[in-house]
């Protein structure tokens, strides 16, 4: 039985705190009652109700559980880098109640059988909801269409090509047209493979100075434009994953003005860091798409503020130590991020670059709408909730991180925001240890 289907368990009353519903609504929380996996009552009715357990949430913020559109759980395969149990526990630690599992597994999630396997393991070992994303092409090789009907029937919520590109526009067009047949959203990380070539860093000032192999902006922007035009032509519902360039945001906004069904997300680390993070050859910041310039960072934040970019994702990609213990070019891209997304977001709030409600929207209602769902704190809804203390601090390091991957973007730095409790389907998925 998956978390989504669970009900019951002891009732819980949360008293105090402030509720942000992810859609701009805000209220002081006199009380919130969770019973039978749902939000049974809010306000006075909850105050007066009795419960098995009462939690004092003074000083805390209560939001819908965070939803991650891009998370690598590393299972099946790659056990040394993580598995469904470890990485969903890490997600719960970060306040997430739902994660979309990338199809980049081994074997690739390109068949109903693999999807079923992921769902079965998640049902018994994950404390949160796991929504598989199927591979849009067989083996993610960008050549042959996958069995999308089978993937949809097995429970995939979308199809995509992970971080890998699709070789040419003709195949891309067919992927979109076929996915559209089944009403499946296609999630693509836009990158022109020929222009990206062997690059691993933003083609800019730092790359020039350090002699790194660059990925130019046009590797992304030409792909964004191509995908938008193909989505317009095929009628597919397109989701652009992990944008990194200012021009991409402009093109996205323009496409939306023209009424094309396109949504997008950005990884949290793209909002905090720039190419300068690589100036000391720090392999933690070897990510794909690469961290770009300050102008891009600002435009991505503006995109989130204005709602042009729907969601902030973790792009969680845990690694074992060996993957990052090499000269920069020889390391594997990716960071273990899911536990620090909220804290990095709160740093943006402290810097006045995002408001708290914009941050919460991009972690809850925004990604929910991409999946055609809702994320609210309302009576009768499934109790997927995150309760965090913005004033409390923590330091990501080997002892505090739950993920198998320990290469967090800001290891060793004190960060604001501690998740005190994550409830998924009314059950405690994470609770801050006492003391």
């Amino acid at each position, binding site marked *: 039985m998956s978390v989504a289907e669970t009900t019951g368990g002891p009732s819980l009353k949360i008293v105090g705190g402030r509720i942000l519903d992810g859609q701009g609504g805000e209220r002081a929380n006199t009380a919130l009652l969770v019973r039978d996996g749902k939000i049974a009552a809010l306000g006075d009715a909850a105050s007066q109700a009795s419960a098995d357990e009462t939690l004092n949430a003074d000083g805390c913020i209560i939001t819908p559980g965070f939803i991650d559109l891009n998370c690598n759980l590393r299972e099946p395969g790659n056990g040394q880098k993580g598995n469904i149990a470890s990485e969903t526990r890490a997600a719960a630690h970060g306040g997430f109640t739902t994660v979309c599992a990338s199809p980049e597994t081994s074997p690739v999630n390109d068949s109903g059988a693999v999807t079923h396997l992921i769902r079965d393991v998640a049902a018994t070992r994950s404390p949160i909801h796991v929504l598989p994303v199927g591979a849009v092409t067989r083996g993610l090789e960008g050549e042959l269409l996958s069995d999308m009907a089978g993937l949809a029937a097995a429970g995939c919520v979308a199809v995509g090509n992970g971080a890998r590109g699709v070789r040419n526009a003709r195949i891309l067009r067919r992927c979109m047209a076929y996915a559209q047949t089944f009403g499946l959203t296609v999630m693509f990380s836009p990158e022109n493979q020929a222009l990206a070539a062997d690059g691993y860093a933003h083609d*800019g000032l730092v790359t020039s100075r350090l002699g790194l192999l660059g990925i130019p902006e046009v590797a992304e922007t030409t792909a964004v434009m191509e995908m938008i035009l193909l989505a317009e032509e095929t009628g597919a519902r397109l989701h652009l994953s992990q944008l990194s360039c200012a021009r991409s945001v402009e093109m996205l906004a323009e496409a939306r003005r023209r009424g094309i069904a396109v949504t997008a997300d950005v990884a949290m680390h793209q909002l905090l860091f720039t190419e300068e993070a690589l100036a000391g050859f720090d392999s933690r910041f070897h990510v794909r798409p690469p961290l770009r310039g300050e102008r891009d960072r600002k435009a991505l934040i503006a995109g989130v503020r204005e709602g042009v970019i729907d969601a902030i994702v973790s792009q969680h990609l845990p690694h074992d130590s060996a993957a990052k213990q090499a000269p920069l*070019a020889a390391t594997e891209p990716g960071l273990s991020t899911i536990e620090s997304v909220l804290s990095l977001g709160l740093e943006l709030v402290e810097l006045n670059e995002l408001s708290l409600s914009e941050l919460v929207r991009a972690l809850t209602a925004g990604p929910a709408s991409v999946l055609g769902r809702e994320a609210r704190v309302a009576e009768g809804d499934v109790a997927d909730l995150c309760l965090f203390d913005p004033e409390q601090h923590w330091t990501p390091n080997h002892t505090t991180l739950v993920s198998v991957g320990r290469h967090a973007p800001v290891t060793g730095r004190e960060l604001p925001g501690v998740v005190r409790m994550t409830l998924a389907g009314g059950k405690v998925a994470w609770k801050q240890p006492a003391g």
Partner: protein
Amino acid sequence: MTANDPSPNHLQLTRDGQLRHFLTLDGLDRELLTDILDTADSFIEVGERTIKKVPLLRGRTVVNLFFESSTRTRSTFELAAKRLSADVLNLDISTSATSKGESLSDTLLNLEAMASDMFVVRHSQSGAPHFIAESVTPGVAIINAGDGRHAHPTQAMLDMLTIRQHKGRFEGLKVAIVGDVLHSRVARSQIRALNVLGVDEVRVIAPGTLLPKDVESLGCTVEYDMARGMKDLDVVIMLRLQKERMEGALLPSEREFYRLYGLNQDKLALAQPDCIVMHPGPINRGVEIESAVADGPQSVILNQVTNGIAVRMAVMSMAMGGQVSERQQKQMKGAQA
């Protein structure tokens, strides 16, 4: 915004500003570069003695770790270490451990277990010496002998020594670097050194396909036309053009490159009459430079080679001095505690 200190100096300088490793010229000031040149100057006469040795690194073990083959650079490092009386081990890693699948970290652990004091590292990947410097036990010095497209700091310093010998100064000089700047670790280090030492102008002369993005940000001006670029020059540094650059649509042909950017006597005549001609070697005659210029009176190419030994002796002795003093400081702190 960065999570850590991106400056290389936390790694390559001791707290009192001495050289601990020599990885890049980024972040090093004019005083330190001048110190390296002065020290190198003092080592030149060692090479002119009958017994070409000083005892500065006696009892120390220097390992030449070349992950990429290079006869010339390795030989000069080997000679420099031997003239400092060090024991030298040459390891051609490209054909040994790592080709058997061993990781760089494991290779280093094994070499450290042999009680090495200094690694001279040449690697095809930018930043590899930084990674090694961060990984090794404190007390082991790392000298960058060229990493990817990033830096070749000893080559740049021997070029600076050669310029100072022939021009007597850096102020007021106009210097051009010609050719494949995009792939050149030497050019990046040269541009940095020339700027820190105070030349008037650094020009790069190359077609657009052989220039890094926003190359001006490195501290140079760009000239696509060789005739215009040669005007008023005091120093012209030619870069080596690898033949494989002709493929992959970077250049149409060797012949066209030579016609447009190859240095011949006619083009050299456009510069100052006492303009010196430099080249890090090995030279491709008839591709970057014509023989009459390479062997001509304005060429200082062989001086560069001689100076390479003195500069490497200077850097090795200074880095070892920094390592020793850092270790002594730690020991003193330990004793006080």
